[in-house]
């Protein structure tokens, strides 16, 4: 890990980030022929490789959608697995074009890191995973517990705030990768494993006996997860932002991967604008007229991606909750394509 960040640091120092050229991310990607996408080192549901090296997940679908919009080919991607600690340095140095790695949107990350969040792919919150045998029913009973956490995350700070705020003592043991953290939890080094709730459900599947562990009801923080791009290239910022919006809008418009070909022939004005049969909205983004079609054809709409990766169609079985559309009881809301 240390070596990676050292190399990346030197890369920044040596100016490989190429400040003036940063405004041409789209051109650079097209010249290179692949999109470089920063993902996790393996988090089921969000970004995880299978035994053949194919990446899947909600975060991966964002990258696939961008690649589809740019190249009309969702496979032209180089996935760069990053630890929580190295992810921002990789983005700053230009090693990746977009960071889509269950990253929480906070003010300091939006500003001082030299990067921008483009939207929220998943509304999450921090929770606690404990062994059932401890007979703990609430996070407020965790005083004097040992807590395993992954270093370089907002989780670490929320944890300190929560225990301090409730006048509880605790011991924190921080590891670099999620795998090491879970291993230490399973070995009994800690009583509690804390992370974003979605991640707790995903990691629980990796434990030898998932049924022996339970996620406590308390959610102690807001964790809006979303993709990030570098400061200084508004065109690229728009493309990544509207790729997610397109997926959310598609769900609202009822466009799915299956019916996309039929819907493209529709006469409805909002669909005609989205599909580019009326106007040139895609070209305004710096893409092609059929950008919307390409995205939905490749990965489907937001709801489909959610169900396939983390929802009812997956092992994780997470309900939509906050991540449902705004008109269905959730808070996922995308500005109109017009």
């Amino acid at each position: 890990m240390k070596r990676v960040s050292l190399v990346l640091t030197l890369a920044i120092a040596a100016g490989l980030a190429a400040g003036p050229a940063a405004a041409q991310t789209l051109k650079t990607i097209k010249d290179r022929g692949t999109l470089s996408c920063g993902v996790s080192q393996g988090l089921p549901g969000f970004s995880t490789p299978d035994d053949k090296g194919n990446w899947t997940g909600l975060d991966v679908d964002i990258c696939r959608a961008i690649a589809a919009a740019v190249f009309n080919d969702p496979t032209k991607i180089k996935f760069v697995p990053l630890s929580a600690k190295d992810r921002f340095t990789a983005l700053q140095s230009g090693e990746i074009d977009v960071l889509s790695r269950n990253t929480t949107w906070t003010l300091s990350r939006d500003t001082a890191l030299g990067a921008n969040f483009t939207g929220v792919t998943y509304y999450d919150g921090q929770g606690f995973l404990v062994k059932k045998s401890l007979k703990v029913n609430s996070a407020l009973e965790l005083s004097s517990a040992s807590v395993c956490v992954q270093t370089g995350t907002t989780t670490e700070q929320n944890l300190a705030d929560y225990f301090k705020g409730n006048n509880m003592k605790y011991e924190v043991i921080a590891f670099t990768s999620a795998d090491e953290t879970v291993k230490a939890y399973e070995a009994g080094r800690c009583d509690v494993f804390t992370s974003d709730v979605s991640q707790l459900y995903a990691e629980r599947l990796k434990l030898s006996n998932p049924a022996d562990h339970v996620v406590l009801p308390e959610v102690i923080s807001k964790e809006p997860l979303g993709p990030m791009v570098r400061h200084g290239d508004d065109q690229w910022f728009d493309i990544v932002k509207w790729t997610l919006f397109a997926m959310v809008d598609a769900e609202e418009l009822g466009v799915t991967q299956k019916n996309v070909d039929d819907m493209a022939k529709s006469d409805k004005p909002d669909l005609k604008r989205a599909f580019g049969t009326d106007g040139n909205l895609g070209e305004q983004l710096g893409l092609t007229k059929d950008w919307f079609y390409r995205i939905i054809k490749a990965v489907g709409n937001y709801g489909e991606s959610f169900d396939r990766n983390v929802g009812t169609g997956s092992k994780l079985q997470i309900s939509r909750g906050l991540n449902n559309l705004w008109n269905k009881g959730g808070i996922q809301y995308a500005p109109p394509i017009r």
Partner: protein
Amino acid sequence: MSIEARSPPSQFAFRLKRALGGRAGWGGVALQIVFVLILTWIGYEIFVNARANLESQRIASGFGFLNNTAGFDVSQSLIPYSGSDTYTRVFLVGLVNTILVSVIGIFFATVIGFIVALGRLSPNWLVSRVAGGYVELIRNLPILFQMLFWYLAVLAALPGPRQSISLFGIFFLNNRGLIVPSPIGEPGFGPFMIAVLVAIVASVILHRYARRQLFQKGIAIKVWPYVLGLLIGLPFLTALVFGMPFMLELPQLKGFNFAGGVRVIPELVALVVALSTYTAAFIAEIVRAGILAVHKGQMEAGLSLGLGRGSVLRLIVIPQALRVILPPLTNQYLNLTKNSSLAVAIGYPDLVSVFAGTTLSQTGQAIEIIAITMGVYLALSLLTSAIMSFYNWRLSRSLEA
């Protein structure tokens, strides 16, 4: 007609020419100046370019972040620390933890290394084979792998806090570490510490006096009974006069963990064990080479004087061997210090973990933090080298005298 004395060529210019240009003369000097200029220019370009890029992307830079609140906790800290302290404090916590591991590791590595080396040279077949096997096994396995082995093996074998292994109800061993009673100072603590100090100083003086008597007058004085008496008797007497120096606070199971007492976390244990056994394998070979480098005639001469094998080693062979041992031994000490940065893999909060890890990803100021961290390791290494050079200098002086 007077012969004018030829003035000698300017010594200063000559020396300068030799120092800077070597045999190449002034041409060499010019070449070196050009080289330094190019190097400076490259350094300047890197600096300016990095600053311009950071500014254009509006990435925060500078060292102001050190005064910001860290907002996260650390599992082991020898100095008072809480989440509301600054990043400077985090840096110090990490630094102290790194130094702690290095010092303990160096101590045990040296002790184990010497024992294994002597074992390998032992005439006893079994002892020398066991020592040889140790060296070959340990030094040929990657250090990170050994760390994970110790950490996970230690953890997996130990029970949880509620089923702790208890020694006399005073010491407790579980998968959260080793918990020992912590001493709490009582009124007799001050005089007790003074007594200990006095005893140590007196012992050192006594030892020096005996040495001088031996070298100058040839009188051998047995000092160890006096030293033992001083070190144990004096503090004991003080405790009798002034009362108990400290009370022991016994650890008690409370909630999930033990409260009270001092806890040695398993991460520290695993790290120290892995680092010291690994480095000891190399030190053993260095020590063995050093001892073999001393001519065997020295050993034979000592034995023929009627000294025992141990005395010959201690008085004749090892002092000479140390001259060969010290430089490569320094290398091993430096390696151990640098290897301690692998601690991050097993969750020990060293400098790389809390500062170049957590602090870096929270502030995003990679260049500053990596520069500081590299500076610290450089300083630690140079300091170790300096101490060892000083020792080497003293040693060679005493051997020449």
